[in-house]
């Protein structure tokens, strides 16, 4: 089997051919799907573990502390210990709550990021599904998650949960619009919704540089709106500890709480991955004009490394926001979206269309 770190398509095709030869084509297909699903589940678990650790370390960095240091070298085993604790905790249930919906809600919240992650192009040929509706599909499945949050708040039979869920719901539904419109701005530029095509169209240079002013505005709106959409600080009014305890997941404990926690971090990864793919070229190395030796040197770094470098940079940015900015009030938050971001976004798309039509971009 030819394995190359630069291009996975041969490797994947070989595995596929091997599976359909050894078993029947149908069985080979099913086994392939199971392998992919297992890979993603493992990846999501690993992602949750590492992102929680990174978040705590970044938080400590901004607060001039050391963060977790006791469990394992530099506290690296801290999150593993936390997970073991969460698994053995008693799953509590409030009196008179709707037990079926209460137990169902964490799964609905989790389904959305798991469905979206399959479209992320990790490297050349390393993409589970490649729909021609790409971004639209990601946006569509992400909109399912809000149902789980609303159900969690309602079925807990607790007024704090209910108010927290209402706020989260209103926030997610409104900021979703800005996320979609800011992504559309770049779709105008690339002319396709398919993620692999969008990555390929950035071979000459990343859209954030080539689309100059409107692309930069779109990126700023994207990062603000998606921070709000994932309910992270400074937009975490829904779970403001001082007045609403923990928002919609107040009544959840043990492993069900871990689901909500995991969903938040997987969502953060998806936001970073989509942002990196749309604005920063996904796995495409940094190319500047016709400087041969520079471009060749950049090509030496494997695409997977490029992808994860960009994703980590955006994740660091999101964590930076959370631990630096003060929290917004709920009405300020909705005002920001409906009165400022949305009109700005629509004008930005218009500007981008003019730029594309007059060939003003690089």
């Amino acid at each position: 089997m030819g394995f190359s770190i630069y291009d996975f398509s041969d490797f994947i095709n070989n595995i596929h051919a091997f599976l359909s030869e050894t078993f029947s084509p149908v069985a080979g297909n099913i086994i392939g799907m199971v392998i992919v699903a297992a890979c993603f589940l493992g990846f999501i678990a690993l992602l949750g573990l590492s992102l929680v650790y990174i978040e705590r370390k970044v938080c400590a960095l901004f607060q001039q502390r050391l963060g977790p240091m006791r469990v394992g070298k530099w506290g690296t085993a801290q999150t593993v210990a936390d997970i073991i604790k969460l698994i053995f905790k008693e799953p509590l249930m409030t009196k008179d709550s709707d037990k079926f919906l209460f137990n169902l809600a964490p799964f609905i919240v989790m389904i959305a990021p798991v469905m979206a992650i399959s479209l992320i192009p990790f490297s050349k040929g390393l993409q589970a599904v490649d729909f021609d509706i790409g971004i639209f599909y990601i946006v569509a499945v992400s909109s399912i998650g809000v149902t789980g949050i609303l159900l969690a708040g309602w079925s807990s039979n607790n007024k704090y949960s209910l108010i927290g869920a209402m706020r989260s719901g209103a926030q997610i539904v409104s900021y979703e619009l800005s996320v979609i419109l800011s992504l559309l701005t770049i779709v105008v530029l690339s002319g396709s919704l398919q993620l692999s095509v969008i990555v390929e169209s950035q071979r000459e240079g990343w859209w954030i540089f080539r689309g100059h002013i409107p692309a930069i505005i779109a990126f700023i709106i994207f990062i603000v709106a998606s921070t709000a959409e994932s309910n992270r600080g400074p937009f975490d009014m829904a779970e403001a500890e001082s007045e609403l305890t923990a928002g919609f997941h107040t009544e959840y404990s043990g492993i069900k709480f871990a689901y909500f926690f995991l969903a938040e971090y997987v969502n953060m990864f998806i936001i970073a991955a989509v942002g990196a793919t749309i604005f920063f070229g996904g796995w495409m190395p940094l190319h500047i004009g016709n400087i041969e030796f520079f471009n060749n040197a950049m090509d030496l770094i494997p695409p997977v490394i490029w992808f994860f470098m960009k994703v980590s940079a955006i994740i660091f940015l999101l964590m930076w926001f959370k631990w630096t900015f003060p929290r917004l009030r709920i009405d300020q938050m909705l005002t920001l979206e409906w009165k400022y971001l949305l009109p700005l976004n629509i004008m930005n798309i218009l500007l981008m269309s003019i730029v594309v039509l007059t060939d003003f971009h690089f």
Partner: protein
Amino acid sequence: MEQIVFYILASMIVIFSVLTVTTRKILRAAVYLLTVLLATAGFFFLLNFNFLAAVQLTVYAGGIVVLIIFSIMLTSHVNERLEATGNRKKFFSFVAVLAGALICISTILDYGFKEKSDIEINTSMSKIGTDLLSYGDGGFVLPFEVISILLLAAMIGAIVLAKRETQN
């Protein structure tokens, strides 16, 4: 394989549709409805109509069901149970359902579906986009514009309704 997926989706739709109308808790009805709508999106994926599937997910699962859940959350409490319907109502709704089902089934059986395997349906995103905005043969620009105006009117109407009246 496709048939197995089809039967799974079809049985999901049947079971959850029945549950939607028989459950006594209103929010559970909304969740069962969500499952039915998701399964319908699954059908579109099975038929390779990816665009339609994503529209189904955004508009129904992400929009309408969220709207329904929001309104339920604002108006009812978690312990509330709907009253059981009386026998008269049950009987008449059963008759109505039976009549509707008979009409549908007889129409489907009457219509001679022709088997065709050589037609290629282009459901790519760019084709849909160009068709939606073309005014030539098979273009959909007129319905598209009419719907845009309708949506704009609905949006303005919603704002006017929701706007608080200023005191003098």
